[in-house]
């Protein structure tokens, strides 16, 4: 033993403290890829995605610390697991960016095939976006994390998980308790996603409990009748036979058969099916099953399947508690009903039965609790709470600052909507609950909220400029200062960003050369048909539709005769034709194509930089990120600049932006986690830059696989009529159609921006961001989030700030992680069951 005051330095170990290791990299890439693929599929199917950091952290413990430690006692260190989760989330995160934007091209009727340049353009653009997003946000790490100390609740939660080995058994138990509580609370919201086929004897009860509609019950009884009688109507069987013939023809095309002849045959068969099925509600799968059963190829009992329309009996959820509004009869409507049918039962008022189903509405559904209706607030106001442990945990971790988010929601849903409605300033056909349940958010909350967000972010950047400058100066001086080598310098970032910019320019340049119009401006014939559109596209001649160049557009025309007709038109007639097909040119339309692409790439890159800051700040302050709103704005921006017909370049830039901003938020959140555990930022930044491009490739491949499978099965790539409805892309599609139809309320966005700017003049520059965010998001998540904020404040007052941090943070972290783990399990089960044909 040495003297007390002589420091002992233990011998330097043979191997350095494990941080960036082969095991961590392999783990991160593999787990990230698996999460990406499964979440892409479930995102296209049911519309939500999951951020993977917390799941990857938990899995990292299991694999790196658990399994690998049996081989190497030093494996699975806190920092190594941090690198593993950084890479996994880097590979996973871009799926939300891709599935929000890219599928909209398919929904609008454009194709995405690996034999076409468009597929690769989009893929490279998404890869460029991922790299750009990472590059742009890295220099702001110091400002956001070191200086502004943004909380990044999810990043903080992941830090809690990583620190659990050393935090002591009590804190680990508290973390696990949070995970357990979250899973218990969240489970009944997810169970109804799974179902059995309904029992015939239970149909009446299922209708009464609003699990299925009357029509579902009737169809089920009809199918039962066919099964029992071992026969189906001739028209149904014939439709099924025709569909089977179409499948055969498609398979022949795929094998290299004569495409033209077979497509003509398919079109003819489809017309026959339309005639047979006029007025009928049977789905395609049912007709095929009936045809197969009639031919003796399958048992009649196989018709009993939810895919054929047989009623579903979902597993138990909160709605099964049957906590409803009290019954309240509308005397007037009842009297009128009883005039025609004396036995008619009492008609409920709209206050308790909004959709007039005959049953009082549920106060507790599978995912929400409607406290407002219980308190009898006006229908045009809303006070619902989501059953969402994640929101509760995020609110707790945000604390007092989150009350501003709540304030914005209160402004929109408890003040703005009711006052406008009661003041008669909204369309007369709207009911109060229409306003509260969606109309208000879509038409008021979103444009004003996004505007406030933009204005608040702009003011935030202006006010934070001194600290941004100090942070950048520190990074630039890094190689010469103590501790400075911990940060990635500016030079590699500039090189990476320049490379990504070039990629974006190329993508914009090539895509603006493509014809975006879906209707011939001369003959009005449909050249590219939307999914589900009543009118089909005409067949392209050999070599594709002829193109002409006008006002910056390459326009596709139906045939040579249309080209001749176009040549004979004067400019006024041509402009009129463009307006008719909703392809009016924009300010850049008359420019040289390459210059236009350069401007789009430059504005796109600048906008990506700014949007990345907004998203990272929102995530840092609240854990919410308005990615879809910013993506919508991006698509609108490009369409306005390049012309409202420029859908392909707009979606391409939108996809680039979405990938960029998801990576910005993810990188910052991971760096916050790294800060908590003492990781070297440089290591996380390098591994993220090296792996971020993988995610978009995987995602695009999965989208391709899904669309090819859908095309082979149904002839439809995505959307209605397939199992992958792509709901988020549908939302973007409706915005694109809105822009083309002149429906965008640009002034509301502008006025919101002005309000956001002015709000930021006070002592808190980011106030507009917080208020705008909550006007834009669904209120029921904000209210639950607000409970978390209030819980933090209350506990801090009661037990002291230190206690609230020490014990509250791990529990809140557990809530966030528990919901994420359960969501992933549910996603995985959906994927497995879908591929196995189960339900």
């Amino acid at each position, binding site marked *: 033993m040495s003297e007390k005051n002589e420091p002992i330095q233990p011998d330097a170990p043979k191997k350095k403290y494990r941080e960036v290791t082969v095991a961590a990299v392999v783990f991160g890439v593999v787990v990230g890829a698996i999460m990406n693929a499964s979440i892409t599929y479930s995102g296209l199917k049911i519309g939500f995605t999951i951020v993977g950091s917390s799941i990857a952290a938990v899995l990292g413990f299991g694999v790196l610390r658990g399994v690998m430690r049996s081989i190497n006692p030093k494996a699975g260190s806190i920092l190594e697991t941090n690198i593993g989760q950084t890479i996994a989330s880097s590979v996973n995160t871009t799926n939300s960016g891709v599935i929000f934007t890219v599928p909209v091209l398919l929904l609008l009727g454009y194709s995405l095939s690996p034999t076409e340049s468009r597929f690769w353009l989009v893929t490279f653009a998404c890869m460029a976006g991922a790299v750009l997003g990472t590059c742009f946000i890295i220099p702001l790490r110091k400002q956001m994390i070191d200086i502004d100390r943004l909380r990044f609740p999810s990043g903080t939660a992941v830090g809690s998980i990583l620190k659990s080995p*050393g935090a002591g058994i009590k804190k680990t138990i508290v973390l696990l308790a949070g995970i357990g509580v979250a899973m218990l609370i969240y489970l009944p919201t997810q169970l109804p996603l799974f179902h059995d086929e309904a029992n015939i004897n239970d149909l009446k009860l299922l209708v009464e409990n609003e699990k299925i509609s009357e029509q579902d019950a009737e169809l089920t009884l009809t199918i039962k009748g066919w099964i029992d009688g071992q026969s189906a109507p001739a028209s149904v069987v014939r439709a099924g036979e025709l569909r089977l013939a179409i499948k055969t023809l498609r398979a022949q095309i795929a094998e290299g058969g004569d495409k033209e002849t077979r497509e003509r045959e398919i079109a003819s068969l489809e017309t026959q099916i339309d005639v047979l099925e006029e007025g009928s509600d049977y789905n395609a799968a049912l007709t095929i099953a009936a045809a197969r059963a009639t031919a003796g190829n399958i048992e009649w009992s196989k018709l009993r399947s939810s895919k054929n329309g047989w009623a579903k009996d979902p597993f138990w959820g909160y709605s099964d508690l049957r906590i409803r509004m009290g019954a309240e009869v509308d005397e007037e409507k009842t009297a009128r009903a009883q005039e025609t049918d004396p036995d008619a039962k009492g008609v409920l008022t709209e206050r308790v039965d909004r959709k007039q189903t005959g049953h009082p509405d549920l106060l507790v559904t599978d995912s929400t609790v409607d406290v407002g209706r219980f308190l009898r607030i006006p229908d045009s106001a809303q006070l619902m709470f989501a059953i969402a442990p994640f929101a509760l945990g995020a609110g707790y971790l945000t604390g007092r600052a989150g009350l501003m988010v709540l304030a914005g929601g209160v402004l929109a849903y408890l003040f703005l909507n009711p006052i406008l409605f009661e003041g008669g300033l909204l*369309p007369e*056909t709207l009911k109060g609950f229409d306003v509260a349940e969606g109309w208000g958010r879509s038409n008021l909350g979103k444009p*004003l909220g996004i505007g406030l967000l933009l204005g608040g972010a702009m003011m935030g950047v202006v006010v934070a400029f001194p600290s941004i400058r100090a942070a950048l100066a520190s990074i630039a001086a890094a190689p010469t200062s103590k*501790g400075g080598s*911990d940060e990635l310098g500016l030079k590699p970032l500039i090189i990476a960003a320049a490379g990504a910019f070039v990629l974006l320019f190329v993508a914009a340049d090539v895509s603006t050369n493509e014809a975006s119009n879906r209707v011939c401006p001369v003959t009005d014939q449909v050249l590219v048909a939307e999914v589900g559109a009543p009118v089909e596209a005409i067949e392209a001649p050999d070599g594709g539709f002829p193109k002409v160049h006008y006002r910056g557009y390459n326009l596709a025309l139906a045939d040579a005769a249309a080209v001749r007709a176009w040549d004979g038109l004067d400019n006024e007639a041509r402009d009129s034709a463009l307006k008719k097909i909703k392809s009016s040119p924009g300010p850049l339309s008359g420019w040289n194509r390459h210059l236009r692409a350069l401007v789009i790439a430059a504005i796109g890159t600048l906008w990506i930089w700014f949007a990345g800051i907004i998203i990272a700040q929102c995530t840092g302050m609240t854990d919410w990120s308005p990615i879809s709103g910013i993506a919508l704005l991006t698509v609108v921006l490009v369409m306005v600049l390049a012309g409202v017909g420029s859908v392909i370049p707009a979606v391409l830039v939108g996809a680039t932006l979405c990938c960029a901003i998801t990576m910005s938020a993810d990188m910052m959140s991971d760096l916050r986690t790294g800060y908590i555990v003492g990781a070297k930022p440089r290591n996380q930044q390098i591994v993220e830059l090296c792996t971020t491009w993988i995610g978009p490739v995987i995602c695009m491949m999965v989208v391709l696989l899904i669309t090819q499978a859908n095309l082979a099965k149904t002839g439809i790539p995505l959307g209605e009529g397939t199992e992958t409805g792509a709901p988020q892309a549908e939302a973007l599609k409706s915005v694109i159609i809105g822009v083309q139809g002149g429906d965008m*309320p640009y002034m509301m966005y502008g006025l919101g921006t002005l309000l956001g700017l*002015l709000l930021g*003049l006070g002592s808190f520059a980011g106030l507009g961001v917080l208020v705008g965010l909550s006007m834009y998001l669904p209120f029921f998540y904000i209210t639950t989030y607000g409970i978390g904020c209030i819980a933090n404040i209350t506990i801090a007052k009661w037990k002291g700030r230190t206690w609230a941090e020490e014990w509250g943070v791990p529990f809140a972290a557990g809530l966030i992680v528990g919901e994420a783990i359960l969501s992933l399990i549910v996603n995985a089960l959906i994927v497995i069951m879908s591929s196995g044909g189960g339900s």
Partner: protein
Amino acid sequence: MKLIASIILTIALSLGTLAAATAYTVSLGTPDEQLVGKTLKFGAGATADDEPIIDPGTVLTEGDLVTLREAGVKHVHVKEFRFGLWRHSWVFGLSMVGLVGGAMMLRVDAKRRLLAADNDPHGTSLSPNAAIAQARAAIDELRADLPAMPTDQDRLEAILAKLDDVQRVQIAAFIGAREKLVGRFGLAGYARVMDRFAASERQVNRAWSAAADHELYESMVCLDRASELFADVEPLLKH
């Protein structure tokens, strides 16, 4: 003053959003020549069956306006924005004045509080200078005590316990003193101080993680670095 400023801001923001929400809402009291040719964004009026009297997308004609007025409809919602048709523009203007006024009041109040906080020698929380000094002292004490401990396990436990305290007390106090520091040094100066502080805090965090992973050497190296970096922060805090 903060309360009054917050009330003004709340009222101004509420009025501003209300006014902005009516940007495309036009009164049917407006002269016909300003309304004819405008396109309805939403259906106008409502029949007994809750269907619109005039469908969305319709370009308004004089006849449409007569029909709507006879039905008692007061407003329509159009796609085109015209400043002259925006009845509540004055409300929006008022709200902007309120927002600017409220923001200025908040700034004045914030400046006053910063000065007061910085000049208060009897503040209840640990001062930034004291927090840094105590953190450094605690780490140096730990470094001095470690050699005397009987085993590496004892050293690792001591590191975890001591750093838990430093993170919970001194570091938390320093982070909580943002207002004081901004008041003292301005935003740019605060940024420089936090930049140095963050580097030292990261070393403390890394030392903690290494100790939790039984990496004694790494932990002690990080403690050495943390002590040096805290020493770099102290001169920055002098006026």
